[in-house]
């Protein structure tokens, strides 16, 4: 059952990722990108990290994909002029993939079957975030604030 789900999700994710990387029209690529992240979130659900899967859906499909679509609309006049494709990148990507596969298949696996775990509840994640991870949490909040202010300043009107 789970193996079937794994194969289906893997095919969906990788096909959508390939489409996002190779479709000539930007808007199609952005939609395939959203489908890719649905697949990754499904992997997180399959692995028992439901909260991370939900966060992935909210952040990537709710925010990042919409941001990308808006950017495509704002830079619309440019489409069609840059159909260039660099085949050197394909060779490098295939070489990196071969190296990674070689490394993965040569190492001893940690364990064949996943150990049984108790369900990771949102309550537990909240407790951990507020106790042992409270400083990283504050730093991420600072980074997000700085990034959003920086993004606003970058796109503010220049003629004043």
């Amino acid at each position, binding site marked *: 059952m789970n193996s079937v789900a794994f194969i289906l999700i893997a095919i969906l994710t990788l096909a959508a990722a390939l489409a996002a*990387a190779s479709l000539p029209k930007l808007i199609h690529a952005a939609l395939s990108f959203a489908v890719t992240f649905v697949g990754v979130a499904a992997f997180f659900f399959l*692995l028992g990290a439901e909260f991370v899967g939900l966060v992935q859906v909210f952040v*990537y499909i709710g925010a990042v994909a919409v941001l990308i679509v808006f950017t495509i609309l704002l830079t619309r006049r440019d489409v069609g*002029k840059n159909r260039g494709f660099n085949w050197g990148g394909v060779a490098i990507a295939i070489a990196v993939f071969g190296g990674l596969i070689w490394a993965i298949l040569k190492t001893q696996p940690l364990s064949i079957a*996943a150990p049984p*775990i108790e369900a990771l509840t949102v309550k537990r994640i909240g407790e951990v975030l507020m106790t042992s991870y409270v400083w990283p949490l504050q730093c991420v909040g600072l980074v997000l604030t700085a990034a959003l202010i920086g993004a*606003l300043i*970058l796109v503010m009107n220049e003629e004043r």
Partner: protein
Amino acid sequence: MTPALHLFLIVSAALFCIGLLAALSRRHAIFILIGIEMMLAAANLNFIAFWRFGPQPQPPTGVMVAIFSIAIAAAEAAVGLALVIAVYRHYRTTNVDQLNRLKG
């Protein structure tokens, strides 16, 4: 019975390489950002897979790292897309091959 760790690592490697392909071979700035986001997602998938198959530490470290990584990726996407818009206003193009003013 979940599939073994190797399969997750192979899928993650494939996703990473597709992201690398998008970042290296497309000439549009938004495609490069899409590729970078895919590579980050592949790294997150590895974190979660290792958390699930490794020995379980008391704070769920892999899940925490993945959550923080998603937050950083969101900040990166916001700044990156703002940069794309700023570059488009200056040069009227988002083709990274034409942004060569600093080329010697």
